[in-house]
C-alpha cells in the first residue's frame, strides 16, 4: 500500500509539469536533461540502498541535490571550455543507472526465489 505513494508523487509531478505547459529556453535544455539523469540515478541508488538495508536519509537527499548541481555545473563548465563535459556526466550516470538497476533486479530475484522456496517447503511439510 505504501508503495503507491511515491508512484502517485511521480504521476502528480508529471501531470503538474505537463499541465503548467512550462518551457525552458532551448539553451538550458541540456542542463535539465542531465539533471533528470542525475535525479534518476540518485533515485535508483536510493531504492537499491533501501533494498540492501543500508539506506540513509541524509545520503539520499544530499546525493539527490548534489548530483544534480554537479551534473549541471559540469555541463556549464563544458559549454564554457568548449569540451563536451556533459558527456562525462551522461556516461557516469548512465553506467551507474544500469548497475543500480541490475543490483535491484538481482535482489528482487533472490527475494522472489527465497519466497517460493519457503512456500515449497511449507507445501512439503
Amino acid at each position: 500500500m505504501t508503495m503507491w505513494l511515491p508512484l502517485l508523487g511521480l504521476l502528480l509531478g508529471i501531470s503538474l509539469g505537463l499541465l503548467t505547459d512550462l518551457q525552458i529556453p532551448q539553451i538550458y535544455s541540456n542542463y535539465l536533461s542531465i539533471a533528470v539523469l542525475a535525479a534518476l540515478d540518485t533515485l535508483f541508488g536510493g531504492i537499491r540502498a533501501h533494498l540492501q538495508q543500508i539506506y540513509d536519509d541524509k545520503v539520499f537527499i544530499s546525493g539527490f541535490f548534489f548530483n544534480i548541481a554537479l551534473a549541471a555545473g559540469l555541463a556549464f563548465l563544458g559549454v564554457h571550455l568548449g569540451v563536451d563535459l556533459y558527456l562525462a556526466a551522461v556516461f557516469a550516470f548512465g553506467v551507474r543507472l544500469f548497475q543500480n538497476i541490475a543490483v535491484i533486479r538481482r535482489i528482487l530475484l533472490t527475494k522472489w526465489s527465497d519466497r517460493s522456496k519457503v512456500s515449497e517447503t511449507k507445501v512439503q511439510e
Partner: protein
Amino acid sequence: MKKAINWKFTIVLLLIGFMIAVQYNTMEHPKERDTRDIWAIRQELAEEKKIHSELLTEIRDLDRTISSYRTLSESSTGQALKDTVDKLHKKAGTTDISGPGFTIEVRPSVESVAYGIPITSISSDLLTRFVNEVNRFKGIHMEVDGKRYTMMSSIRVINGATTVNGLNVSTPPFTIKIISPTMSDSEKLYNYLLASSIHDDFYLDNLVLEIHQPERDITIRGYPDKFKNLYLKELPKGE
C-alpha cells in the same frame, strides 16, 4: 521511519516527474520566437488592409448586382441573368475582349544574333516568371503568342516545347498582349515593366522585351475551349 522514507521518496519523485515533464515539453514544442521588427509587422498589416479593401470592393460589386436584380421587372429577369452570365464569361476569359493595353514583343537579343547563338524557344520557367510579374496587377487580361491566358491556363513543357493551354509558343519573336481595366492602369503596368528586373532574366536567356506604348484599343482573343465544370451540378427544376 518507513513513512518518513516514503514521504521523501514521494517528494523526490514529484520533482523528477516535474523535471521530466518540463523537459518533454521543451523538446516537443519548441517555442517560436516572434522576431519580426516593426516594419515587418507594418508590412503584414498593410497586406491585410489591402485584402480588406479588395473584399469590400467585391462586396460592393455583388450588392450592385443584387440591387439590379431587385429593380428589374419580372419580364427582364432573364436579361439580368444573361448579363451576369456574360460578365462571368468575360471574367473567365472565354470572350474576345478589347480595351486599353499594350503589346510586348519578345525578340532574340542583338548580341545573340551577332554571335550566331541558336534561337531556342522561351523556357517555361521564364514565361511563368513573366506571367507572375504581370499578375501583380489586378484585373488584367493577357494573350501570349495568340493564346489567351486565363485562370485555368497552364504553362507546360510538352515534348520539349513550351506551351500555353497545350499549344506551342513559337520561337521568338512573338508578341504578348496585355489589357488593363483603364488607360491609367495600363500606363502604370507599362512603367512598372519598363523598370522591372524581368529584363535581366530575359537577357540571361538571350532574349529582350520590347514594350510598346499603351494604346486605347487592343483586342485579344477569347479562350477557345469550353471550361470543364467538375464541381457544380444543375439542380432539377422545382426544388
